[in-house]
């Protein structure tokens, strides 16, 4: 048996020694390989923009996008700019739908391809009307940035940002109006995250929260404080309904924990009783 084992060891070890490569090769070929292989499509926009031949200001776009909310939600270059990222030669061809960068005043329509509701409300707002009239006015990028777009939150409305064009008073009233709903939505989001972590999958409530929050934020883009105020109750009741479901799930979670703790105590108790009995028997 020893000789057999020794022979097998030699049989395996010798060829491995002879094919011994370098750590770099190993890491490249095995450990850092894109495991999804061909399923992850090549994106020529990213590979080109990330290359050294690109000007620094264009090169930064890749890093900015990768850190963005869009990247996290799989919204890639072609979703906004068009073109064909699979074909490096024709990636920026107009025939393949390449749009390039929009003019300043066309940015709302550019983003509005996806954010339809927000576009409609924005165009009705003072901001939108001023922009279309060719006056000095903000577009989407002014508040949200372009490539490093982060998940929207109430802190975007800030004195620093709004006072670039006008006084902060009106914006402040809007922020106060939004605050309670936004706070409640943030708390619910946190609670839903906790529930998901515990293995309860509150998918319907998550969708409902997303939808309520998105509709509420859409409404905000009218910049009409009175309109937002008039519909606050409607959104509050929707959030209350989600909150009720969340509380029910937390109660359910507590009862689950209580039940498994009860079982733990039952088995611990039985174990202790048997242990004590077994000592008696042995004596």
């Amino acid at each position, binding site marked *: 048996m020893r000789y057999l084992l020794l022979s097998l060891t030699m049989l395996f070890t010798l060829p491995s020694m002879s094919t011994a490569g370098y750590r770099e090769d190993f890491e490249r070929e095995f450990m850092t390989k894109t495991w999804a292989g061909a399923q992850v499509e090549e994106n020529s926009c990213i590979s080109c923009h990330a290359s050294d031949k690109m000007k620094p200001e264009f090169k930064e776009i890749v890093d900015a996008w990768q850190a963005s909310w869009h990247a996290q939600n799989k919204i890639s270059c072609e979703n906004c700019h068009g073109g064909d990222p699979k074909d490096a030669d024709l990636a920026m061809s107009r025939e393949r739908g390449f749009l390039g960068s929009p003019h300043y005043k066309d940015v709302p329509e550019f983003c509005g391809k996806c954010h339809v509701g927000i576009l409609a409300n924005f165009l009705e707002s003072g901001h939108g009307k001023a922009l279309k009239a060719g006056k000095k006015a903000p577009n989407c990028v002014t508040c949200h940035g372009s490539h490093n777009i982060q998940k929207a939150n109430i802190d975007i409305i800030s004195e620093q940002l709004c006072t670039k064009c006008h006084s902060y008073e009106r914006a402040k009233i809007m922020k106060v109006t939004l605050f309670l709903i936004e706070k409640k939505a943030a708390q619910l989001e946190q609670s839903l995250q906790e529930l998901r972590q515990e293995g309860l999958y509150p998918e319907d409530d998550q969708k409902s929260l997303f939808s309520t929050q998105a509709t509420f934020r859409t409404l905000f883009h009218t910049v009409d404080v009175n309109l937002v105020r008039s519909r606050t109750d409607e959104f509050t009741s929707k959030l209350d309904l989600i909150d009720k479901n969340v509380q029910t799930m937390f109660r359910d979670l507590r009862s689950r924990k209580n039940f498994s703790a009860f079982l733990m105590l039952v088995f611990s108790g039985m*174990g202790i009783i048997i242990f004590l009995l*077994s000592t008696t028997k042995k004596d």
Partner: protein
Amino acid sequence: MKTWLNVRIGLDDFIQTKIIDYRIPKNINIFYTLGFLAVIAYAVQAVTGIILLIYYIPHPDHAFRSVQDIMTKVPYGWLFRQMHVVGSNLMITVAILHMITVFLMGNYKRPRELTWLGGGLSLLLTIIFGFSGYLLPWTQLSYWATTVVTSMPTAFPLIGNPIAQVLRGGDHITEITLSRFFALHVAVLPPIFLTLTGIHLFLINRIGISATPFGMADEEKRPLTEYKRKTHADGYPYYPVFFQKQMYMMMAYLAVMFFIITFLPNLFFPEEAHIPADPFKTPAEIRPAWYLLAPYQLLKLIPNKFFGITIQAILVALFLVWPFVDTYQEKNVLKRPILRGVFIFLLVMWVILLFWGRTS
């Protein structure tokens, strides 16, 4: 009823000869219950697994959803799933502890070579059980951990890629892989495991329980020229002495299981375990289950991948055939400094690699 059974199968005689007259060595210790505990752990897995099987749908479009439903809609589904997940990890832990204690007490030595081999193969099967079950919930964790582990065989030249292809049913983890792993988990492995366990138990019964090397003179040092069942005429009766030990260890096992379910429900569920599998989104950290972390980390550390996997294959083979290699008669590992040193070194390395793999 009792008379009816007595007349037909000799129930009283069976109880008398197999349970009451069955003697166990006086110096038997608590570690001897670990084998029984492994059987209990398997029974828990089988029962909870069958319940999950009723509701689980082995298809990428439905697997995650069906697991969600088990957790939220099926009455006590959460409990059975938690028991199955926690139980799988505890079962592997118990099986590993069983092998370690058998090794330390020298109970693998002749005439128990085949018993060790059966136990060792059962441990490997237990790990394959865990690995195959890992993919079934079709989460980010299961998808990517399986991707990494099924890539390990590609380290072998020539046969590596075909092995990975057979495991995955193609180049990538797809619905074919899920079907294969599901079949392996619920239909292929259980009968093999039961057969192996049956052989293992048969051998234990046929050869007799080994006395521990601590204290008693061991008759097994005799020249092995003929079959002789080891008996312990002066030992304790199996029932109630050892039976009670087994019972309170079983209770302790279940108490530990429910402790984890109650206070550490996410011990085996990192964040990726709650996100449906997405082949286009590689998580920042891809790690296999804890029991595969040490081999995974070793594979990362050794520059040549074929060499890395070869070393591991040799170690596994050596582990299985160790009783045939170690023919030294001394059972007490305390009297064998080299073996003790090598064992401690390997154990410490395993622990270091495990934690290294977890944190790197």
